[in-house]
């Protein structure tokens, strides 16, 4: 399990390569990279700021990742999440999962992203020419989270 919260930009491809290096125990690697958009709907975004609660945020993200790895039988999971000020085009989050066969790796990445959206102690604020606003989970984020939880039972 590798979980990192960082204020620095990161290179998702290099992170994935390092994560997968030497892993001949897994036949599948699935990854997802979320990047900062230049606009949300019609509203231009100049910067995205993500606040975190040092110590607690890392601990909670690691807990979510561990639950996901256990549930989908993944030998390893990688989460890298940016905090601080982020510019359009930069990577915000990388989630990668290893599994024996592809189905579980796909499911693990999708499920962990659903949980991160609503349960990771991170707070996003978008700023642009029209001002700044805090982002909260959308109803569809809660719906996806509920569906992910349903699949868990």
């Amino acid at each position, binding site marked *: 399990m590798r979980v990192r919260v960082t204020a620095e930009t990161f290179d998702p491809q290099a992170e994935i390569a390092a994560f997968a290096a030497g892993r001949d125990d897994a036949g599948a690697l699935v990854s997802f990279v*979320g990047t900062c958009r230049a606009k949300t709907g019609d509203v231009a975004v100049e910067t995205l700021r*993500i*606040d975190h*609660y040092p*110590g*607690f945020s890392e*601990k909670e*993200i690691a807990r979510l990742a561990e639950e996901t790895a256990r549930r989908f039988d993944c030998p390893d999971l990688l989460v890298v*999440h940016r905090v601080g000020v982020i510019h359009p085009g930069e990577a*915000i*989050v990388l989630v990668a999962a290893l599994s024996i066969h592809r189905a579980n790796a796909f499911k693990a990445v999708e499920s962990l*992203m659903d949980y*991160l*959206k*609503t*349960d*990771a*102690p*991170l*707070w*996003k*604020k978008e700023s642009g020419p029209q001002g700044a606003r*805090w*982002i*909260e*989970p959308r109803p569809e984020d809660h719906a996806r989270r509920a569906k992910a939880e349903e699949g868990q039972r």
Partner: protein
Amino acid sequence: MIHLVFLGKFGDVAPAGLGEIALPTGVHTLGDLQHWLAQREPLLGQAMAATRTRLIVNQCVAHDLSQPIADGDEIAFLPPMSGG
């Protein structure tokens, strides 16, 4: 002294100087503290009342507002999260 941490939008309305305060007289529980804050800082009180607020004590999730507070505790106020 107790340490208070205001995350996300709560940080925008919490005045500087609330990060470290003497445990106020009459405040014994998390519920007391929330009430005291709302009285003292109405904007913060309104922001907390308008959304789901989670409380974290010494980095552990608090499930009950009757949980006691002791000198030296760190209490964080979390608005709804938006990761990913």
